[in-house]
């Protein structure tokens, strides 16, 4: 075998070796990436609850359609509840699928006389508790009851079939 031939052989072997290493490495990396899902994940070494506590974020209520009022005392104002409840319920009705709203209509359908009686009852209670609250401003039970009826009136006015 002459020198030239030996040189060719050595070059060939070198090329083959480099190619094998390169191809193997490439395949290994590809396989590793493809199989990542079965590789064990790193586990935290501290109790998960403690980890969560440190990073737990406070939510923005408006992101969830909530309305936050700074006042914690019962609000005894019909306009306030109309604005709060009527607007919200109207918006919900607009965004509710017809079949769901139909279900709601069906469930809520009642004798118009009965509805009128209820509305009359609510109005009477609002009148009576307003008088009582005016007479006894510190009567917390009366204030709470008045708030209930104001809320119910606002809500009842916005529900289907009860305009």
């Amino acid at each position, binding site marked *: 075998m002459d020198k030239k031939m030996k040189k060719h052989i050595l070059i*060939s072997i070198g090329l083959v070796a480099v190619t094998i290493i390169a191809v193997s490495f490439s395949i290994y990396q590809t396989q590793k990436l493809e199989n990542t899902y079965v590789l064990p994940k790193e586990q935290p070494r501290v109790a998960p609850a403690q980890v969560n506590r440190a990073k*737990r974020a406070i939510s923005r209520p408006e992101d969830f359609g909530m309305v*936050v009022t700074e006042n914690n005392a019962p609000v005894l104002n019909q306009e306030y509840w109309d604005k709060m409840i009527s607007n919200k319920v109207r918006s919900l009705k607009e965004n509710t699928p017809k079949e769901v709203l139909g279900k709601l209509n069906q469930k*809520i359908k009642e004798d118009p006389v009965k509805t009128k009686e209820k509305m009359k009852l609510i109005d009477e209670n609002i009148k009576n508790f307003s008088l009582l609250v005016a007479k006894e401003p510190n009567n917390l039970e009366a204030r709470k*009851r008045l708030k209930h009826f104001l809320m119910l009136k606002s*809500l009842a006015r916005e529900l289907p079939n009860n305009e």
Partner: protein
Amino acid sequence: MNNRGVALIISYMVVSVLTILSSVFLVGSSTESNAARNYSNSSRAFWIAEAGMAQAYRNWINNSAQPVGGVSFGAGAYSIDTSNLPIVTVSGTCGLSTRTIQASFVRIPSAFDNTVSVGGNMTLNGLLAKVEVYDKTRISGTFSKTAFATAVFSDKQEGVSKDATTIKIPDYNNNGTSDEFVDFVEFGNLAVENYSADEVVHVETNGTVNIFPDSALVGKKIIFVEGSSTGTGNVNIFFDATWADNQDLTVISTGTITYVEPLQYASDSRLSTISWGDYGEISVFRSEHESVVYSHEDASFVDILDWGQTTGNVITNQNLGLTEVLTYEKFYYSDRAKNGDMPPGFGLLSGSTGTPYVADWQEP
């Protein structure tokens, strides 16, 4: 031209190609083998952790000490961490794989055995008021009603121990005293932490939060409204049939909760409440819903202008009042808590007595 040696070079080239091909298969086979081994180890680690959890539960109900450090099991080992009770964390290892699981060990308070549990007195007021309670009604004080009101109980007992009617908030701030406001706040935070971030809403306010059936709340498990002191962080809930079906939501408040219930007809949707302050329910139309109600103070069903029905448990540590129930209010028992289907957050209201239960299992 001298062609000597060409055959040798061609042979080398053929051998090289074959070598490359065999290397490819060899490497591929090796990687798959490793992947399979890792998968196997990971699965084994999980089941070893499960075995550790079962052992930890057995130790807990038998009041036995939990093992310190790793415990050999099968092809691996598990370790139990109970430093954060009721949350128990167990890690299982096998080879290089580690899996961690977490659960809360709780005892379901006896109050969950009852449809209505009252730590104080129960009253029914109103000219035409009517209440029907099916299954157990347990009252630590007494029941009374106005002259023309009607009450139907299938199983009522008065003067029973408060252990059977009330729930104390565990000593979550570890100051040696349970049932404090700070324990309740800690409880609320733990309830939030037991779920993933996309399953909870945590609002901090000293005002009042009004909650409507918003689509962004679909799939949520916990809404925690946290005020800085008692009587703050009040909640008004306005839910109706526009709420999504198949929901299981618990609203927790450091203040009072008022549930304005026009209708709650969503199929299989549950809305439960836990409040440090009073719980109140009012309604204007025929209403029904499935829920567990827990109030650390009073609970009231007031100004119920039409037929109302609650299926679940009503638990109040103090008084239960039904006032101006113009048609009637019915209470039916639901044994979901006893059947391993505790509503979100309630698993943390455990006491030192009651039925052992594993809640909030998860792999964090």
